[in-house]
């Protein structure tokens, strides 16, 4: 052996080269933490406050065992609630701990996943795309250091989050929210974050663009939530395909299962391995697909302002449209299972006494409000496109031509508003088709479609707020996202927590008649549309008066 090593002199050098691939990782981790010194604490504080604050309010909301039992019937036996929350662990003995597992865990981990996806993509693909990584890679930084450092940053953040959640929950001292369960609860948060950090590490290898990478990984968060919803409603193994399903299967405070946590860690390891393998197969800055050449001249439609805006947003519209249709279709086809629930007279009587609608109708109303908010995410992204063009410096070139500022913004507003309506349409068609097929009642199709389109005014108000913010306070375009987040909060938790009426009223979605469960009323829709138009006008006027922000 010794002779072989001695004769193969280059061997140590080769080994050193392999080891060098990680050189500088520690520096990069510190650098990432420095860059995220506001973001990370903000995410951690936000998630922990909502979770621990929510848990703290439960003893007040459901003081007696009878209250909790009634809640157990509403959450555990109603398919609409099951799709929103989870499979109903511990529903037979519905303690505060079981309530946390059932009503908070599956929802909160979505934000943990989003945090991790944004973080990993920001520190990998976005760095490459902007050319900043090139500057660093030219220094003494190993080939794998960026990816490793991004994952390490995400791992540290999720670990900190898990500990914060565990400490916060355990520290509340609520009966049945015990310390062992709190550690499982915190771990469930952390591993969902880790799995999605791994997924983002993989998607970041496929595409050249940071936004596309986070878009793909973000779509997978949606799929994970959808898959477990359908699995939970149908009470089948489908939930096991979803990382969110694994978090719920750990059933903190009920069974305290550690092995689904272990499963998530194994999958994370596999994803990370895949990401490193893929990154080794591509060039720096490139995606896995080779760049293609395309049209040497612009088509006739690209030369018009509206055609130009459409071209920039086209692929987004198409992908969102396909996704919304599939979302609608999957939720719609679950109607078949709902009808089974309806066979149970006790539940039917309960739900019908609450809303005066059938179980299927209240399920569809709930799904439609959820889909409408997801459609709004599209509309808000589309409405904020001018801001992206502005900060990237591309708007400057365009606005130096004979295209007026108002017209330029208006073309994107058209895409956001008409596109948002289109999203509601395809989501409604998908849901309607699914519901009609699942129930065998074709009448559902038109009912569902109308109900979905009725959400357009709420969507317009939210997207219009983005336009107004862009025109007046461009740095505060996050306001529009705050409204989207608030609307999600109200739709999801409004039914669970007894929120005061004015808090519900702040969300435009509260004012939309929840058809098919409720009756149609036109006045709120008209008022919301007028508000939306006013906000757009404010945005357009504001943008005419302000400086263009340049890079």
């Amino acid at each position: 052996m010794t002779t072989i090593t001695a004769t193969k002199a280059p061997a140590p050098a080769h080994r050193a080269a392999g080891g060098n691939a990680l050189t500088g990782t520690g520096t990069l981790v510190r650098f990432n933490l420095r860059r995220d010194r506001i973001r990370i604490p903000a995410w951690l504080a936000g998630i922990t406050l909502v979770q621990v604050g929510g848990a703290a309010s439960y003893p007040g909301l459901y003081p007696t065992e009878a209250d909790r039992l009634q809640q157990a019937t509403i959450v555990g036996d109603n398919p609409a609630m099951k799709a929103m929350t989870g499979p109903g662990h511990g529903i037979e003995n519905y303690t505060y701990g079981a309530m946390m597992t059932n009503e908070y865990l599956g929802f909160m981990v979505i934000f943990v996943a989003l945090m991790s996806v944004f973080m990993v993509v920001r520190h990998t693909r976005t760095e490459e795309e902007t050319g900043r990584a090139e500057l660093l890679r030219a220094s003494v930084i190993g080939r794998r250091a960026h990816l490793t450092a991004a994952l390490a940053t995400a791992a540290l953040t999720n670990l900190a989050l898990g500990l914060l959640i565990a400490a916060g929950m355990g520290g509340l001292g609520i009966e049945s929210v015990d310390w062992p369960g709190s550690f499982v609860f915190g771990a469930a948060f952390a591993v969902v974050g880790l799995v999605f950090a791994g997924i983002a590490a993989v998607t970041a290898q496929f595409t050249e663009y940071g936004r596309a990478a986070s878009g793909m990984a973000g779509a997978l968060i949606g799929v994970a939530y959808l898959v477990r919803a359908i699995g939970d409603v149908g009470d089948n193994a489908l939930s096991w395909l979803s990382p969110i399903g694994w978090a719920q299967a750990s059933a903190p405070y009920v069974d305290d299962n550690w092995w689904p946590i272990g499963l998530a860690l194994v999958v994370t390891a596999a994803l990370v391995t895949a990401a490193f393998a893929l990154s080794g197969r591509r060039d720096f800055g490139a995606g896995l697909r080779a760049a293609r050449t395309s049209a040497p001249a612009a088509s006739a439609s690209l030369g018009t302002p509206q055609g130009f805006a459409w071209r920039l947003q086209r692929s987004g519209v198409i992908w969102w449209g396909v996704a919304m249709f599939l979302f609608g279709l999957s939720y719609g086809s679950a109607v078949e299972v709902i009808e089974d629930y309806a066979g149970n007279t006790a539940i039917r009587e309960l739900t019908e006494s609450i809303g005066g609608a059938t179980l299927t109708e209240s399920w569809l109303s709930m799904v439609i409000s959820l889909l409408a908010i997801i459609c709004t995410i599209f509309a808000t992204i589309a409405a904020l496109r001018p801001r992206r063009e502005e900060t990237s410096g591309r708007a400057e070139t365009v606005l130096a031509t004979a295209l007026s500022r108002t017209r330029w913004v208006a073309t994107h507003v058209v895409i956001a508003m008409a596109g948002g309506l289109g999203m509601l349409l395809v989501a409604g068609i998908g849901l309607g088709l699914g519901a009609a097929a699942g129930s065998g009642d074709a009448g559902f199709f038109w009912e569902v479609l109308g109900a979905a389109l009725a959400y357009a005014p709420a969507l317009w108000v939210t997207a219009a707020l983005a336009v107004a913010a862009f025109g007046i306070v461009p740095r505060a375009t996050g306001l529009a996202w705050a409204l989207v987040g608030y609307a999600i909060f109200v739709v999801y938790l409004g039914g669970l927590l007894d929120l005061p009426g004015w808090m519900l009223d702040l969300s435009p979605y509260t004012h939309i008649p929840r058809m098919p469960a409720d009756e149609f009323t036109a006045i709120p829709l008209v008022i919301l549309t007028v508000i939306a138009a006013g906000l757009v006008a404010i945005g357009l006027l504001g943008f005419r008066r302000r400086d263009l922000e340049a890079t």
Partner: protein
Amino acid sequence: MATAVSVSGLVKRYGRTVALDGLDLRVEAGEVHGFLGPNGAGKTTTIRILLGLLRADRGQVSLLGGDPWSDAVDLHRRLAYVPGDVNLWPNLTGGEAIDLLARLRGGLDKRRRAELLERFDLDPTKKGRAYSKGNRQKVALIAALASDVELLLLDEPTAGLDPLMEVVFQDYIKHAKAAGKTVLLSSHILAQVEKLCDKISIIRLGKVVQSGTLVELRHLTRTTIEANTTQAVTGLDGLPGVHDVEAEDHRVRFAVDGEHLDGAVRALSQFGIRSLTSQPPTLEELMLRHYGDDLRGDDLRSDDLRGDEVRADGGAGVH
């Protein structure tokens, strides 16, 4: 002759930072006007105000007889702009971006577009993301040069172009001038400005510190004279406007201010001139005189800084 750009007392602040501090600028129609200054002097801010992208805090601005803020759209039909840092849409090809920009401006000459693509050696089928900096710059240049406009606003338009392309660019600017177009060319490539520009304005800390033709500006600075004489030269030091005299046997070298050149050469001729070379001041020296002012007070580091600046400018000129 009409005035294409007329700016007086222009002030622009960003919070506490004063970007433009009473800037005056006049560009006559049909002239190629060089706009020189170091990074951060306010060149880009001025051009963005001329484009109506930024609103001036104070001062009068007139562009092609209109107001750049309120008449932006109509004025933009008559001008083309090339930014110093071109960002393209990642999903649009270079050819599409050229057509788009030109059409939004009001159309382009197809023959000219094809000719420009060939001369600038640009592949129009690549997507925005795949272009290097120089090629992105070419996209914006071609879109601007292919449009039939009265005024070209060019903000360091050749940053990233190779020397061959620089020559092509200079050709087209000369054509534009011959066709009666007005060009405002912001640059810190001095050789480029010297070759192309009729008039030059030097901007520093948000103010124009010098403006005039190259000849006029040269009067403001020193010519370097080197001579071989039959007798050893003495007494030059005492003459007005003569500086940095280095005399060694029969060779002498000195710098003389423009207005004292005549006196200095007369004095020199008494010693019997065998050969004489005179070097007109380069723009580098012009610039150094304006930007070097600050540095003189700074005893310890002045030499270092000066050296840096020479290198930085020289470097920019080579690229």
